């Protein structure tokens, strides 16, 4: 089992969700987040007071999937979320030790 965390541009969420659903991914967790990477923030000016906004709004998707699906899922996310411009985001892959479905007590891949 692996956890895929993808930080993407907010307006790409629908495309990414649709392409993951086509692959048979049955669930995901989505969070509105803020952060920065190489993409610079922007400045806002209110009556002469200038503020630099470093943290830009992004969307974080988390999915837990069996090892066999990792390549297909990552490819799908990268393809759907890509605009080719700076600020497209990142994908992180990490191992999951175990998973439990609370309703049934199922464990491991059956639980995700």
């Amino acid at each position: 089992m692996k956890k895929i965390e993808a930080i993407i541009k907010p307006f790409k969420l629908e495309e990414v969700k649709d392409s993951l659903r086509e692959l048979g991914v049955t669930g995901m967790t989505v969070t509105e987040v803020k952060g920065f990477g190489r993409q610079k923030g922007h400045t806002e000016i209110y009556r002469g007071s200038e503020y630099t906004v470093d943290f830009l709004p992004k969307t974080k998707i988390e999915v837990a999937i069996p090892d066999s699906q990792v390549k297909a899922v990552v490819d799908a996310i990268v393809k759907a979320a890509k605009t080719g411009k700076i600020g497209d985001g990142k994908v992180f892959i990490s191992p999951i030790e175990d998973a439990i479905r609370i309703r049934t007590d199922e464990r491991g891949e059956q639980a995700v």
Partner: protein
Amino acid sequence: MKTLLPRLLLVTALWCATFAAPAAEAAKKPDPTIEQRVGDLEAYVNNGARVTDGKAESRISGAGPGHSAWMMTSAALVLFMTLPGLALFYGGLVRKKNILSVLAQCLGLAGVVSLLWWACGYSLAFGKGSGWLGGMQHAFLRDVGTDPNGDYSAWIPHSLFMVYQLMFAIITPALTVGAIAERMKFSAIMLFSVLWMFAVYFPVAHWVWGIDGWMNGLWNDGAKIKAIDFAGGIVVHMTSGWSALALCIVLGKRLGHGKEPMPPHNLALCMVGTGMLWAGWYGFNAGSAVAADGVAVNAFVTTTLSAAAGCVTWPAIEYVMRGKPSVLGFCSGAVAGLATITPASGFVTPGVAVLIGVMAGAATWFACNIIKAKFKYDDSLDTFGVHAVGGTIGTLLAGVFATTAANPNLGADRIKALVGSTLWLEQVKAGALVLVWSVVATVVIAKIVSVCCDGLRVSEEVETIGLDLTEHGEEGYHG
């Protein structure tokens, strides 16, 4: 001599009549002739004094319906400027942890000032007294009934004039709140405002607008400074704006000012408030004619044009300077145009109003963007930058551009020689005196309040958490 003798006899008779009330009833004035009755009607339509005054019993001795209807509407419009216009305009500009504190201050002032006005404020501002302050004859609204008070209007009830002027008294301290937002104790603001009303608003309103005020150039033959202020450039915007500057410097900057971002939390609210201010301002300026007459309509037009010119000028400067006209720029420019035309609105022609609006937008942009940055005071919501700067410029320009073509009252003997010549100098004198008076009074009152309330400011912890939760036990936004 021929006319003096009968007049003296009449005055003596009236004076004696006050000693013998029953006899006075017997000495009732004669019935009006048909000429006099028609004359009274014409006076109503033209907003002039009754021709029966002192000569015969008027058949329309009370208020006139048309003028009263407009003035009741105007009073409600001016209240609408504060509740909720100014409250939302300011509320949108603070951080979201402080929105309720601004609303509480506006509501609190509306309540407290209304009660002060009833108790003695109206009497001190508009009762006859000395040139410096009114008397107490109208305390608790004694003799303020439905009969007109000829000192201020022949055709609206005295009580309506009183309540209309109350709305000005409410918005003035509420304007000051903008400069000290997000850091002053609620108790200190309330106590400061009460003392400030007695030290600044009631006296200055009397100086400039009281029938025997020593700066009331328009109506008082004996005025030492013959200034004009149609709707409150001196009385409202200069007093509140200059006091705001003094108070925000005494108070000090907000924590983290200049280091951490403090952007407005909701510019949509700010825009809603701006629209309400603009609409309400028709009651403020056109209502200041105290009648539904031609002067009122001219003020309505000049107010519109100045607001429009300000609304265009400020964002136009932004567009030239950095390529983006901002919503806050449109809002600020419109309010600046409105504040600046206020003292001149009933005295100048529409073309001049456009010029005043353009100057208002440019000057207040400069004050908020350049002067504030250079001197580094924390006028949180730019009460000084918009209202003091706008009100001061407008007061001066009213003196330069006032014309009898816009307002026939300027043709009165007491002032006509000044119009078009040195009226501006009278404006400078009145403005400078009120400026100094406001600033000095504010500093003194702030010291007194600081002792009474154990400091003017909330603690650092309270300021960090926000005033809504700590001072009022509520939050503006949940979820």
